[in-house]
């Protein structure tokens, strides 16, 4: 019969219309901003810089290696490397970003900077209410505005942050074990050298230094104070 299909469609619409009064899960509208839908844990908006401890400047993990600046697809990261080194959170002297700006009006939230960072220093925030009436300066975030504590990172991405912390702890343990072994070997060598004054005791420490530059700097970043000697 002509009109059958239309009636069938109407019935479907009616079923949906009345169904929405019955089924609670179909009422998906929330009254923003009083009510909010919780964001997904993996959600990403704009990057921030992680710091350890309480002082953002002292605890900043970033060592200004500029890999993220190079890899950033829309080129929205601007880094000036420091000329001097200053002790990081654990006391190891490191370069630090004298300037670290992200222009979030250009950033496309792709997370490539997070992936390429060897130091777990840059992560994605979930904060999205960033509207401002200052079109230029207000959307160019400097390193102070970008820094967030590791605790904040744990609060927004608990699973990922736990993994990162475990990885860093593992690196640290590895470095400590290596340093300890090297120290023991050096002590043994020194003891041996004391009995046989001719034997050179240098070989082990040079072997330690000959790791890949990336790995070397990674261990630098996580090495505890005084652990390297």
């Amino acid at each position, binding site marked *: 019969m*002509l*009109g*059958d*299909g*239309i009636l*069938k*469609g109407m*019935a*479907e*619409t009616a079923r*949906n219309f009345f169904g929405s009064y019955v089924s609670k899960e179909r009422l*998906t509208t929330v009254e923003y901003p009083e009510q909010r839908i919780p964001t*997904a*844990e*993996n*959600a*990403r908006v704009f990057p921030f810089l992680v710091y350890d401890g309480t002082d953002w400047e002292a605890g900043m993990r970033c060592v200004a290696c500029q*890999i993220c600046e*190079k*890899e*950033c*697809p829309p080129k929205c990261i601007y880094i000036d490397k420091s000329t001097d080194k200053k002790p990081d959170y654990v006391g190891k002297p490191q370069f630090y970003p004298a300037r670290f700006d992200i222009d979030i009006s250009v950033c*496309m*939230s*792709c*997370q*490539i900077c997070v*992936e*390429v960072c*060897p130091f777990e220093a840059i992560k*994605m925030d979930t904060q999205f209410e960033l509207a401002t009436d200052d079109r230029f300066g207000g959307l160019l975030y400097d390193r102070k505005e970008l820094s967030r504590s590791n605790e904040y990172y744990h609060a927004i991405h608990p699973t990922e942050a736990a993994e990162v912390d475990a990885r860093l702890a593992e690196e640290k343990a590895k470095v400590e074990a290596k340093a300890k072994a090297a120290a023991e070997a050096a002590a043994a060598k020194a003891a041996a050298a004391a009995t046989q004054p001719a034997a050179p005791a240098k070989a082990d420490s040079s072997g330690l230094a000959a790791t890949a530059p*990336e790995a070397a700097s990674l261990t630098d970043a996580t090495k505890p104070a005084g652990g390297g000697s």
Partner: protein
Amino acid sequence: MSVAEDKAERVEGWNRPPVIEPEGEGELLEVAMGPHHPSTHGVFRMDVALDGERVVRLKPVFGYLHRNHEKIAEGASYLASMPYTDRLDYFCSLTNNWAYALAVEKLVGQAVPERAEYIRVILAELTRVQNHASSIGFLIQEMGASGTPLMYAFKEREKILDLFESLTGSRMMCNYMRFGGCRVDVSGPWLDATRKVVAGLPAFVDEFEALLSTNEILMARCQGMGILPPELAVNAGVSGPMLRAAGVNYDIRKVDRYGIYDRFQFRVPLGDHGDIYDRYMVRILEMRESIKILEQALPTIPTGPIMDAKAKIRGFRPKPGEAYGRIEAPKGELGFYLISDGGPNPYRYRVRPPSLINLTILEDMCLGHNVADVVLIFGSVDIVLGEVDR
């Protein structure tokens, strides 16, 4: 006449759109449909010459959204182009990711772990379902059913996008696949949520069909409209649901068997007439087949790594050479052609955009129809301007 000559002659006839003589007297009415026409899915223009209501000439005009994606990619590292591929066909960022990753994997001979292949298939098929659902929604919207079917489609798309967001961190710009695997692993809760959504999909397709498939208005406006003959479709490089609606059995998932598609049982729906209704029906049936693939892939997903051990993120420099990789994206054959000169950036990076090439025969399909049907025929091609203009 030999078979070859016969075929050549037939194809020769399709080389140009037919010339239609105006029936009435007087001048033709030139209409610029677009770039701000509500039916053009963005910024696209059709310069139409009308004889009364009848279309006698139609020239598509592109480029309003052109940003020279290929040039940008030549100045960026291989990895840095991955988020830009999201922005080609922004409805299907995951299949774009896959096509690009596949081309690069071909270029360097990179293997992909099994778990990552399963994740890719699951995400690609979810993408296909939501793309087909919303493309049908848009098609019906252009027919004048303003909103209702589109909202039904978006209701389901919303659930799938929520899955994408909880896995990749973004709803549309997923930037998820990497050369040699995927970025983050799927969790148990995510798989459970996906199973729940997939379990609800057949009911959604049934509901969508009850709403539309036998609707007399839809049938009256779609059947016999915008017919695309199979020879022309093949010769003009048309791909995807458009090609299959014309009755050509060509699905790259079956032909190339890329990834792990040879492990799944699914059928390739084909149309008989090549009209708009066939395209609509092929999309509906493809959604059903995609659900079948999802139902097979979800229980059998193996454990293991998601990135190949040899895959490199930093310092990725392929050896000199070239590769063309293609996949069956929801809109058609999406291919990436890459030439490496050994440097960190591709020497040449080319996207084969299915949306652009499917528009080659737009004029052929529209000629002789009323101007109101042009909107419908154009809608049935299913394009995204981000990919057409690149």
